[in-house]
């Protein structure tokens, strides 16, 4: 690591102020950032830790019924506290990484980083979640802008994420054998006004919605509805762990399995 200063504010306002310094960087649970620093692949002058901000912690249910999760809430907390309200989301959180990762990593950190193989982006996009920051609310459909790219401005902090609770949902993750990130992960969420399907791990553009599957499932929420559909391999990631054709194939397999598990 290179040398850096660290601040640990206790309010969102103080964090936002601290992040205005040049080369300042927000630190969530550090599950991506700390290894990056250890590899000397980033050199922020100052880290602003968000873990001491009480108002960004925990899970609650809003007046509209949405599950609201503080931006600095760990995966382990989500898996426990969201279980009664949004079991599909809690199940996803309980399978991110290993216990050490789940006890440190945060939902805000995951969404701000937008790793193309991360789990939370699929849940947020499939749920039509709202990403709440220190100065605005961003719809998930507008938030994800490609691999490691989001609508967040410099110094903007995710303070809360609001998930409308679906009638049924399920996340199917096919593991990349080494990292155990999602080689392909599919989150299916069924709402009164339609079904949303979000795919992570597969695309060179990061998390995306599978429109054809959504249309088919909105008309008939059954796995067999998807039989005639095929995901195009163009634009899918190809690497040591699978070709683009394999990933495209897994999108369909996982979507069907998610529908079976959700219904």
């Amino acid at each position: 690591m290179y040398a850096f200063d660290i601040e640990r504010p206790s309010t969102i306002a103080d964090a936002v102020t601290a992040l205005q310094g040049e080369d300042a960087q927000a630190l969530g649970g550090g599950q991506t950032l700390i290894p990056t620093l250890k590899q000397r692949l980033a050199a922020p002058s100052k880290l602003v830790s968000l873990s001491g901000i009480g108002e960004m912690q925990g899970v609650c249910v809003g007046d509209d019924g949405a599950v609201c999760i503080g931006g600095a809430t760990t995966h382990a907390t989500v898996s426990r506290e969201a279980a009664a309200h949004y079991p599909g989301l809690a199940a996803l959180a309980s399978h991110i990484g290993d216990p050490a990762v789940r006890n440190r990593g945060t939902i805000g950190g995951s969404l701000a980083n937008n790793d193309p193989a991360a789990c939370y982006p699929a849940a947020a996009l499939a749920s039509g979640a709202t990403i709440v920051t220190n100065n605005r609310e961003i719809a998930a459909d507008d938030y994800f802008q490609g691999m490691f790219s989001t609508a967040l401005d410099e110094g903007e902090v995710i303070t809360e994420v609001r998930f409308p609770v679906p009638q049924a949902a399920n996340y199917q993750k096919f593991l990349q054998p080494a990292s155990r990130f999602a080689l392909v992960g599919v989150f299916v969420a069924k709402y009164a006004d339609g079904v949303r399907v979000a795919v992570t791990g597969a695309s060179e553009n990061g998390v995306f919605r599978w429109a054809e599957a959504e249309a088919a499932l909105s008309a008939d929420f059954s796995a067999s509805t998807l039989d005639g559909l095929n995901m195009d391999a163009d634009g899918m990631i190809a690497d040591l762990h699978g070709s683009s054709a394999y990933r495209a194939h897994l999108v369909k397999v996982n979507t069907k399995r998610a529908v079976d598990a959700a219904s």
Partner: protein
Amino acid sequence: MPKDSGIGASPKRREDVRFLTGAGKYTDDINIYGQTYVHFLRADVAHATINSIDTSAAAAMPGVVQIFTGADFEAVGGIPCGWQVTDRFGEPMQEPRHPVIAHGTIRHVGEIVAAVVGETLAQARDAAEAIVLDLTEKPAVVDMKAAAADGSTKVHDDLTSNICYDWGFVEENRDAVDQAIKDAAHVTTLELVNNRLVANPMEPRVAVGEYSRSDDMHTLHTTSQNPHVIRLLMGAFVLGIPEHKLRVVAPDVGGGFGTKIFHYAEEAFCTFAAKAVNRPVKWTSTRSEAFMSDAHGRDHVTKIELAMDADNNFTAVRTETYANMGAYLSTFASSVPTWLHGTLMAGNYKTPLIYVNVKAMFTNTVPVDAYRGAGRPEATFQLERVIDKAARERGVDPIALRRQNFVTEFPYATPVAVEYDTGDYEATMAKLEEIADIGGFAARRAESEKNGKLRGLGVNCYIEACGIAPSNLVGQLGARAGLYDAATVRVNATGSISVMVGAHSHGQGHETSFPQVISEMIGIPEDQIDIVHGDTSKIPFGMGTYGSRSLAVCGSAMVRAAEKVINKAKKIAAHLLEASDADIELKDGQFSVAGTDKSVAWGDVTLAAYVPHNYPLEDIEPGLEETAFYDPANFTYPAGAYACEVEVDPDTGKVTIERFSAADDFGNVINPMIVSGQVHGGIAQGVGQALLENCAYDEDGQLISASYMDYAMPRADDLPFYSVDHSCQTPCTHNPLGVKGCGEAGAIGSPPSVVNAVIDALQSGGKNVTHIDMPMSPSRVWEAMNNA
């Protein structure tokens, strides 16, 4: 009733108390007053000419003690190779200089280009970033077959080609084998890859060099499986330090798996630099450095042909293998694809004619050397895969085909130069059929199919040559060292015993199992016996631990030394009991006169040896300490039969191992629990190779599986509960314990059965897949199903 101590008992491993409670003392725990830290600047390109290295800005940075480059090591030797292979034309292998620090040319990603010694590691690392390299990149040599072609870029300009050697074994059989294959009723051919692996011991390598001006003494603390071998190689060949001025200490070592056998540049550097800067110099590998500097394993590309007569008797085997050496020859690299591989190509079968051709290739990759099994897994894999393919082609049961061709009479001289002293392959196969419940497979397959899964059963046999090795034999084959071992049994005045052994324990449990042997011989409690290892200043000598040799070779030396001690103690007892030496018996820690009730306790005899007031001083010396060296008469030949059952998800290609069974013949067993543990670990690594582990380079020589994000290690949930058995015991005929060695068997014996099982599963599902290269990742299995 099972014994609770001595040979055959399973006391819990005493060393685990310190390992599991954080009290182990590893090399990185060693910190010496005045210590400096070295950071190695490593190549990030695979092949380049070094035009210049400008260290001036770096040298001026805070905390920099001294910066070293290849020029500083011109006057010292290169890292040596311990085995000279002679090619099939009678010429010695090509042996390039292996510099401690790259000088003039970079030959693999991760090679050391410069070393910064600093007051702190962070300062050394900061300064390394200020070193300016002027490089001219050259095309990287990665693919072995392309490397062998005329006109290929050469890894070493001063060699005639990239071929280290073209080895034929047994060369005299070449024509006869060709003819037998031509004449065969059926020939099964298989081309396969034995995938390159990274050993990944839990503890990365560490070296701490120390120099004492007062007595001109060098000390190297290092993560080694064999400290005397490091002293020999580094002292005699690299740095020119005589043995009495060089101490090598390998304290607790957190796993080796072969990759900590070898002498590495970092060890020589820290020893050299400690004198140059006159302060201790410490290096602790990061995991990233381990991926690109620990010697890798396997990496063979093979074509094997199995010839049979009309009755399916094996008549000949012919193989052609390209074996990757990497950029330089690591310590035992040249011996792995030859003498540890070609000699095992008979397997458990009485094939009369065998010819093995191996082309060892230099490439711009990390050096490749022994990894758990070393050559024997490569031999077993190709043979057991081609037999399985042959059984399918001939429409016969794969177990029956193996049985039909088993060696059944011992000793058996193979056509590939070794003689199996003993074995019973029918017994281990019968045991396997029992513990694997092979009779119940059909029902389990039906159940899997109900759940939409394809189920497969794969079986294989294996034999290995371990207990390495008879020195006179390996000397004829090119080894540059003897491979005996040594032990000193030091009896203290009050009867407790310290045994100084040349074997090194880094997970094998010697500290528990070796005292069981002494306890059995003398009849005193195991807690009165300690094992001392890992320090050239404390142990007599020793070639270390690898090749499943610790008990068979060093344990034999220990038995010989203990026998000498007992013989002397009997003389003392005879004196105390006023009897004849010949009438003295030792049992349960008591010396007695045969046929009488006269006896004297072990502790009274040992006390007399050190307080010789009433002692036969005119006949024997005081004290009770003996040393023995043991050089084995032959290798030992553990063998067995393994079975794997898998389920394949036809939708995704994902393979899960449902059952794994291993029936091994290790000869006599000292501690069955430790033996089971060794087999468990070996199977985990074999399954890792078969399903998960893949050390991959791109065409530019960049290591693309350079971290755990891309290099898949086996985890607990990848593995089933194993069924292992070692009750089939044909004791080794030529060592005093009748033991054979168990450390590598699991890794040798398991990969073929996994692949055989997957092929069986896919064929049961109507997929005409005859082979999938390891690792059989979900994507590879899916591609194979799709292309079938």
